[in-house]
């Protein structure tokens, strides 16, 4: 799938060609948002938890250089080997070198959005290392040769019939059978064999505790643990912002994370990795890849508080109707749209505009990131830096010329009203992007200026 040259609006157009699918996608995500609400409303302390989590993350960001070194020292004391990677290339190289040193050519991986951000799978495959994603949703999009479309629900855009067809092609299931129970059982057998035979396993990190040097990985499927406890070498990749100060703070974050994500009270497994097994290895790769730069942007540093629950995507009216792939970034939705421009302002200049600024994302965010305000601020930064989309730039230039000349302003207003009244076909056509999903308004008889001149 080539998404390199299309922007969010064009990709959303592609997604919107199948209206039934858009409705289904929209309703499914809204249903998850409703499950979140039910879970959240059961906790009288919910808002206090959000405030506390946000304040803990403020503390983390203000003292991150110290916490990272504390985590490193404690983890090393526990026998964990720490690596540092300034960027994606370094991260990928560290993984490859670790595998090569052990003569390993096959690795099993549980969900890690960081490795999606670093394009680790492609890199390893180009170096003749086979990677198999073990999260069911990730395995499905891997078989379909697509990126995940949601950080928590990687194949939320896929219908079960499409998954049945993929499994028939790749895993030999019966043609036409798309029963979720049957398909899941097939994946279980297929991936058990992978877990049993792989000597290396890579996982993400949900939380890394500075005080103790342990890290926590949350899954519902148990795939991170099946991989890690059966492998000789467990590699865990984490962004620098995954640090939390003390073990007791997990109480706050684990209460928030899954309720926000899916409405469950907690994930099935919250695994605390502190020391490697006898004669086995745990490696933690601490990755910057633009995060320290984002930390220096006062208006945008709060985006680093994100705990990757996906609540902002499930609630977003634009995400629900445009699909995760329209964001052409590893992390989609509102949070992706404020993280991505930090990595590449030109390539992701369209994303902060993919929002109605309704603020629903900020209202559900468990760590109270001001997402919609950051979207608004990114628009200004992007335009000031000259990265606004060409059509938008031309329209804004024209508007600026019109608004700065009283003659042009009055004349164009009059002309606009004339056109709408006598020649509506001139604007009600496919060349006017505004008309595509809307009706043009009825033109007023006169402008406010004309009315005021008569009635003052």
């Amino acid at each position, binding site marked *: 799938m080539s998404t390199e040259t299309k922007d969010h609006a064009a990709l959303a157009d592609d997604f919107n060609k199948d209206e039934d699918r858009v409705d289904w996608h929209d309703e499914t995500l809204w249903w998850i948002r409703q499950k979140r609400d039910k879970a959240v409303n059961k906790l009288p*302390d919910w808002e206090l938890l959000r*405030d*506390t989590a946000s*304040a*803990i993350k403020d503390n983390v*960001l*203000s*003292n*991150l*250089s110290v916490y*990272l070194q504390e985590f490193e020292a404690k983890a090393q004391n526990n026998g964990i080997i720490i690596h*540092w990677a*300034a960027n994606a290339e370094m991260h990928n190289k560290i993984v490859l070198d670790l595998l090569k040193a052990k003569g390993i050519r096959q690795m099993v991986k549980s969900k890690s959005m960081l490795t999606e951000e670093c394009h680790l799978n492609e890199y390893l495959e180009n170096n003749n290392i086979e990677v198999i994603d073990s999260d*069911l949703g990730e395995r*499905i999009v891997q078989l379909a040769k697509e990126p995940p479309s949601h950080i928590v629900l*990687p*194949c*939320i855009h896929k219908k*079960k019939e499409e*998954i049945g067809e993929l499994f028939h092609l790749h895993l030999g299931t019966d043609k036409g059978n798309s029963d979720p*129970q049957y398909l*899941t*059982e097939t994946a*279980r057998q297929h991936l*058990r064999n992978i*877990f049993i035979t792989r000597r290396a396993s890579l996982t993400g990190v949900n939380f890394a505790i500075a005080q103790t040097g342990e890290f926590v990985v949350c899954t*519902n*499927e*148990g*795939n991170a*643990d*099946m991989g890690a*406890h*059966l492998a000789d070498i467990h590699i865990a990749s984490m962004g*620098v912002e995954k640090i939390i*100060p003390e*073990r*007791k*703070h997990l*109480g*706050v974050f*684990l*209460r928030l994370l899954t309720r926000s994500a899916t409405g469950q*009270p*907690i*994930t*099935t*497994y919250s*695994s*605390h*990795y*502190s020391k*490697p*097994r006898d004669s086995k290895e745990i490696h933690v790769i*601490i990755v910057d890849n633009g995060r*320290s730069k984002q*930390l*220096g942007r*006062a208006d945008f*540093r709060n985006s680093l508080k994100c705990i990757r629950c996906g609540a902002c995507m499930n609630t977003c009216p634009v995400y629900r109707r445009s699909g995760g792939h329209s964001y052409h970034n590893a992390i989609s939705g509102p949070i992706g749209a404020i993280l991505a421009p930090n990595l590449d302002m030109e390539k992701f200049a369209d994303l902060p505009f993919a929002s109605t600024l309704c603020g629903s994302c900020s209202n559900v965010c468990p760590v109270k990131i001001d997402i919609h305000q950051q979207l608004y601020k990114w628009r200004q930064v992007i335009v000031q830096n000259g990265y606004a989309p060409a059509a938008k730039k031309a329209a804004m230039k024209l508007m600026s010329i019109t608004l700065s000349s009283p003659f042009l302003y009055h004349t164009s207003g009059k002309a606009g009203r004339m056109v709408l009244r006598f020649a509506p076909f001139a604007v009600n056509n496919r060349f006017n992007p505004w008309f595509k999903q809307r009706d043009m308004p009825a033109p007023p008889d006169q402008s406010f200026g004309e009315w005021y001149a008569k009635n003052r």
Partner: protein
Amino acid sequence: MTDREQIINAIAANQPAFSPLPATHFTAEDQEDLASQFADTLTAIGSVVFVVDNLADIHQHIKSNTSADHRVISTIGMVEYNEDIGTNISPHSLQNVEIAVLKAHFGVAENGAVWLTEELMGNRVLPFICQHLMIALPIKDIVANMHKAYERIGNDSYGFGAFIAGPSKTADIEQSLVMGAHGPKTMTIFLMRS
């Protein structure tokens, strides 16, 4: 400059003025009848709960629900299910375990999770690789919420520990919930009166 120095220097240069840690005081939840709240939550997340008198009852339950060709491993003193599964065995050899019977340190009423560290697991992979997981938990060892849970864990040292809440599950195919993704297909909790 190494990547480590580069990252730490950049972060030290860019981090905002120090912001203190907040207090973590939360509403004291109803401490009464934690057992029934725990059982209700467990049922909602797909677990099965039995209230029993003691270990002998659990032993009897397992006997009457398994056949001789099932590999059952227990780490809680049921002699016939006792196997050496420590660090001298390959974890791969546990792939045919049908039932694992383990003890948990405590349970959490608000989310149905139980806390186990690796001493109680016998082998780290056991609670994940078995087809069915059974947990024995004294009824008195239930805390209200995750804050109480971490108070109870305190500064304990462990190589590996996990909160486990229900059977392994996935809803990745059109949000249809399926039990038994990669780990156990069922989880049974025996709440022991003594």
